[in-house]
């Protein structure tokens, strides 16, 4: 067992957890933040992407203990005062989601892209999102949503 302290969505949390606890499990089971999804267990699908100290990472292959002391942002931490983040707004406006399962990871990943590059081209967006699998949308409206958000962030 190990004591892990993190700042999650602006709130400090401290929990005693088994050493092998994955960050995705910690968020979902210990903090009940079930917006972070697990779709593949092999770090391929990207449904579990969250931000650790501002950068996107796959929480299903990160040990919670390894990031002790970090700041974590999940999909639940994006909207402020009931107002959606511009990326969330853009996904809604451009119909960038259908079943919604890959969406949290997709949104978190896309936000990091715009932190890295302000106005990415279509092919840059597609390349960046290569680590996020969506089975519903054919990606077209996701790309459109990221472009839409690029103008707003």
């Amino acid at each position: 067992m190990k004591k892990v302290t993190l700042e999650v969505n602006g709130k400090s949390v401290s929990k005693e957890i088994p050493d092998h606890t994955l960050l995705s499990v910690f968020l979902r089971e210990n903090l009940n933040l079930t917006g972070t999804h697990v779709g593949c267990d092999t770090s391929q699908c990207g449904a579990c992407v969250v931000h650790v100290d501002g950068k996107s990472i796959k929480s299903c292959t990160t040990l919670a203990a390894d990031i002790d002391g970090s700041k974590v942002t999940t999909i639940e931490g994006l909207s402020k005062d009931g107002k959606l983040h511009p990326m969330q707004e853009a996904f809604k406006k451009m119909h960038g989601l259908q079943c919604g399962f890959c969406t949290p990871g997709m949104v978190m990943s896309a936000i990091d892209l715009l932190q890295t590059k302000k106005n990415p081209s279509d092919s840059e967006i597609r390349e960046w999102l290569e680590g996020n699998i969506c089975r519903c949308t054919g990606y077209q409206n996701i790309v459109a949503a990221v472009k839409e958000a690029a103008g707003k962030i």
Partner: protein
Amino acid sequence: MASLVGSRVERKEDKRFLTGKGRYTADINIANQTYAVFVRSPHARAKIKKVDISKALKASGVAGILTGEEIANDKIGGLIAGWAIRSEDGTEMKVPANPPLAKDSVNFVGDPVAVVIADTLDEAKAAADLVDVDYKVLKAVTSTADAMKGEAIHDGIDKNLCYDWLLGDRKAVDEAFAKADKIIKVDLINNRLVPNAMEPRACVVDYNTASEEITLYTTSQNPHLSRLIMSAFGGVAPENKLRVVAPDVGGGFGSKINVYNEEIVCSWASKKIERPIKWVAERTESFLTDTHGRDHVTHAELAVTKDGKFLGFKNETIANLGAYARVFGTVTPTYLFGPCATGVYVIPAAYSNVKAVFTNTAPVDAYRGAGRPEATYTIERLVEKAAMELGMDKTEIRMKNFPSEFPFKQTLVHTVDSGDYVAGLEKAKQMADYAGFAARKKQSEANGKLRGLGVSSYFEACGIAPSAAVMSLGAGVGLWESAEVRFNPTGQISVFTGSHSHGQSHDTTFAQIAADELGVPMENIDVVHGDTDKGTFGMGTYGSRSLTVGGIAIVNACKKIIAKGKRVAAKMLEVNEDEIEFKDGEFVALKSNKKKTIGEIAFACYLPGQRDEMKSPIPEGDEPGLIESAFFDPSNFSFPAGSHICEVEIDPETGNVKVEKYTAVDDFGRIVNPMIVEGQVHGGIAQGIGQALHENTQYDETGQLMTASYMDYTMPRADNFPEFNLGFTCTHATSNPLGVKGCGEAGAIASPPTVMNAVIDALGGQEISMPATAEKVWKACKAMKKSNAKAA
């Protein structure tokens, strides 16, 4: 009031998904819950000699271990084949028993043998490792083409043959072929796919010891049907003691139609151990045990005249059902496949023969399109090859054989109510700049690349399944849909539907429809689905049926509301019923122009009158309340159709195929929400391109699944696609009052042949099988170079 139907309305469901508040099955936890882990067969075919759970029972945290023997002792029924198919010789199909936990034999890798239930997931996993199963391993049958030659894997099923089915007239086809100038032939493999909904299957079961009711939260496309099957065939609990809830479900694509072993076992086990049980599939478990799709081996022929008229068609297919026949397993390669075999063409003589075989692989069932992609792939490969062999333009040969009028009575089964196939193909040609292809090909060649263009014109029969149509074909049941429209006294409305949304956007589109019918803002309407305790029995969502069947049930229930509202308004306004007009949410007395809003009528229906009011507003013969339900059973399938055009560029040095342009023109009749329909088409096309270029499910000869993770099975990614160019034509369906046709599967039906026709065009007509991977294409490029050198 402006119509909401036809508008790009943003989705009501998006906010919860975008803020992480979606509630999927794996997000549900119940106090005191246990965790289930299944012990699965590592062998594709084996006899079970002994299952020893003694060591595992002593492991930490174990709450129970149950095996095939116990489930058999408790007489819990197995998984079922939903459709009975008769062979050409009149005999009934043969299906094996499929117990929820295997007792005597296992028939595919992943077949569950026992379930271990423990306080934590880690403990359940550790204990599952201690279950010792002694197997006698037998030689597996895995090949679709050779299954009939292998040893029978199920007792009493000779040649592993489920049925040998025929649709059509062999003699008429022989006569047509005798008159042909040319016979075009293809040998095709429709590659096995794993549907891969992004949410892995899961279930959480809560048994209430006081009421003896089981609540099953599960990843299902059809919770009512799940309950029916588990109750009537599984004997898990009577229907009134079994509540099935499919909350937010993360994609289905057919893989969540079936009631699976895990749902039956956990429901039964929860009652036995009197504790809640949670099970969530790992991705590899999903690969091993979700129903797969496609897997056909086909030989087909098209008889043509030298000027390109089609005379006859025949198709001989072997369809792999996998180890067991499941809910839509037997109907997918027959009635969902055969009737669509002749495509969008007038072909006077045709037959389709399908031999369905059992193998030691995961069960095969419906996957987006289910039978219709396989049919379309066959006819569209033949037509494209015919154009090539006759030296005709590939669009001209299609136009020449399109029907000239509608209704279009096809040779095999369907009478297509409406369509305009010429308009669709003309529009696609224009949008794709068909005329400019030669120049683009030249440009590619100058860059050392090969460029090809492929066309595919399709129709499909969806909105499954009109009772009149399918029962005349011999199916035991038709599939109608139900709806209930419930006004609350204060005017908000709940619309209950028996269909289920797992990405299809029912919260939005059904609210649009009901809002238009009732003349109220859609914000006042909640669409409720996915819970057998809420709303009437319904058939669920698959076969592009939600709108064309379920949506119409909503329309009809709304019409009943309006009819009752008119009677109530007439009494309240003291006029005759025929003097009341309903418009924009108001009942208006035509002569006096006095009116009552639908909200006022609803209130009056529940709380009739005030003190000292001497008359009830409820007319004689009517009951209080404002709730109406409807069951809709359409008169025919809906028949979306269209033409897709794809251009690919191949790098002969690497064999890499790049989809350069993709144009789709579809006819979905009246469109309720263009934004959502476009999304459905995008997703379908992407899955079809996945089948054509990337995805393949590979078993080795011992029956081990070689592609059981995202590191081995190629899922299409964002950078595999260009921007799709969509267009629409619109002919209204005549089989339903909205004029709508299904749109969910069309993209996946049309795109595999479109892409493959383009690849084969680029390769100078060399046949190549799906998926056209870089390795296969590179080899074909080398062969092409060799034969070109020889010719020179």
